[in-house]
């Protein structure tokens, strides 16, 4: 029998969409895993083991090979810059990373940008020759321009609802973001058949 495939799944927002895509592709993933407190779930029918992880940790698990493959947002993938295979664009959890500010924003003398993605943000501004101070925050990024911590923020925008409610506007869309299927460098070889089969199944149901 083939070896079990270990899959790192992100808890939270992406999980439901990812699990329904997997089910559509014929992989029987329960859809209520996210609510349970179980961290490791076996699905013997598919010969898979699902590891419920904090999204930002998924690339780490996969790079170290404790998970063979994983589902993770492109935003996290860019920020973490881990050495993994990026196999498929799953086309789910679609949103964008944007530069956001108050409507009356004008270039500041000492520009400061608050974000959850300091690596992506500093590279983005550096490549444009802009000198900004990047401030790493862990949540409620929208607060930063409202209370004067930063004049701009870099954050994910899905519908724009949160921005509108806080009176903020998108200055610029940086990258479109979707969730990706990633694989460990060694697992990609050692468990090639299982991973390729899953890719084919998923590719058949992905809508991009």
């Amino acid at each position: 029998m083939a070896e079990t495939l270990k899959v790192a799944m992100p808890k939270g927002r992406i999980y439901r969409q990812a699990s329904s895509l997997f089910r559509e592709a014929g992989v029987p993933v329960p859809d209520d895993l996210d609510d349970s407190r179980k961290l490791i779930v076996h699905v013997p029918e598919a010969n898979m083991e699902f590891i419920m992880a904090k999204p930002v940790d998924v690339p780490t698990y996969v790079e170290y090979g404790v998970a063979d493959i994983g589902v993770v947002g492109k935003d996290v993938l860019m920020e973490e810059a881990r050495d993994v295979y990026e196999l498929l664009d799953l086309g789910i959890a679609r949103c964008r990373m944007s530069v956001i500010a108050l409507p009356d924003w004008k270039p500041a003398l000492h520009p400061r940008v608050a974000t959850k993605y300091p690596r992506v943000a500093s590279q983005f501004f550096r490549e444009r020759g802009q000198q900004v101070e990047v401030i790493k925050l862990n949540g409620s990024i929208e607060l930063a321009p409202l209370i004067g911590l930063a004049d701009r923020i870099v954050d994910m925008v899905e519908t724009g609802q949160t921005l509108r409610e806080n009176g903020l506007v998108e200055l610029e869309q940086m990258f479109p973001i979707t969730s990706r299927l990633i694989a460990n460098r060694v697992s990609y070889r050692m468990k090639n058949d299982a991973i390729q089969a899953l890719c084919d199944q998923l590719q058949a149901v992905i809508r991009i």
Partner: protein
Amino acid sequence: MTKPKMFEKPAGVKDYLPEAAERLRQVETRVLDCMRRWGYREIITPTLEFYDTVGAASSTSDAKLFKLLDKRGVTMVLRSDLTAPIARVVASLLRDAPLPLRLSYHANVFRAMEEGAGRDAEFYQTGVELVGDGTPEADAEVIALAVACLKAAGVDRFLIALGHVGFLNGLFRETLRDCPEEAEHELKDCLLRRDHVGYRQRLRELPLSAEAKGDLEGLLRLRGGKEICSQARPFTRDPLGFSSLDHLCRVFEALEDYGVSEHVRIDLTMIGDFSYYTGVYFEGYAADLGFPVASGGRYDNLLRQFGRPAPATGFALKTDRILEVVGGRILERTRRALVLFDTAGRKAALQYAAQLRNHGGWAVETRFLPEDETLEVAPERLAARNGERDAADERFAPDAAAQSGGPERIRLPDVTAGGTRAGACLVQGVRYDEVIVFAEEGKAWRKR
């Protein structure tokens, strides 16, 4: 940065405690021995090299080189691999040595890495270079040797992925004729970063026929055994692509003749650093370890930079990672013996210790027992019954042979008059396979 505490050391470097050092040494010895059997002779090069020579020629990117200045202000590097230093030696000291040359090495190398998974700043490489033979048979030889070395090191389940830089170069040159110049670089960069999504995305944006796009996307699936040779044939009519594929297939056929092709998979998207590798490129993977344990390939342009143009191929095993795979297993263990003596027993004890050291297979410690102290020696079985074997002792647990044979049956030279064999014992929490005492029991030492 704040001043480091006295016990701290720089990020990315490691201490190897006795057990780990012993195991690393065993892996290294076995691998070097395997290489020697294949006719490769070991070479030692300096840790420091000039930045402008070896530093510039190495495949390590500038940002990852450890640089320092000597007292005249000349930039030096800590070697980041052994391939460039060996190329320097082959082109200078060994200039008159006839080719082909077969050289092996084991050394620590240095890379200034970002912190993260398995990225040590100093690590160990054991490898070979085969200089002066450009045939597919030479490539097959180093791959077959890599397989033999992995087996010798004790890695059971492993795979070698094999690609050829020339196939991709030829294919891209032919297919991307009418595309913007940077397209080829961007596509290769995606493959190098293992970003298949980005590769497909970039392809979609290129002004190519649907058929060409299909071919280039199909590349991502060209993985497998010998069948890939025929499957890839229709992809390219470019002479470079074609000859590269031929070369690759001859390598695979030779590997079949070596009897190791079951360990090898072809993957035509496998590319190493393009500025460095010129032909076959391969990586080795072990089950249960997230990172490659070996990499290598053909680098026909490197020797030219040192003034002696010659084809060359080779590989390096990442010895400290192999240790992670086989580390839990004890390859072979040296038995520990403790010879205790008091003043009267000293001569007999030291003579016996010398005899036991010559006997082989034993690490023999000697220890003087002062008159005014009493050392407690607990026979192992008794100690085990009393639950005194703690976790620390487990590391010194006897191997299966010693256990099944029992301590009494371990072969060792006859103990001379005045000495007593106490068998396997715990002495101050440390386990010895054999304790031999040249002192009167009850005074300087006592059994518990």
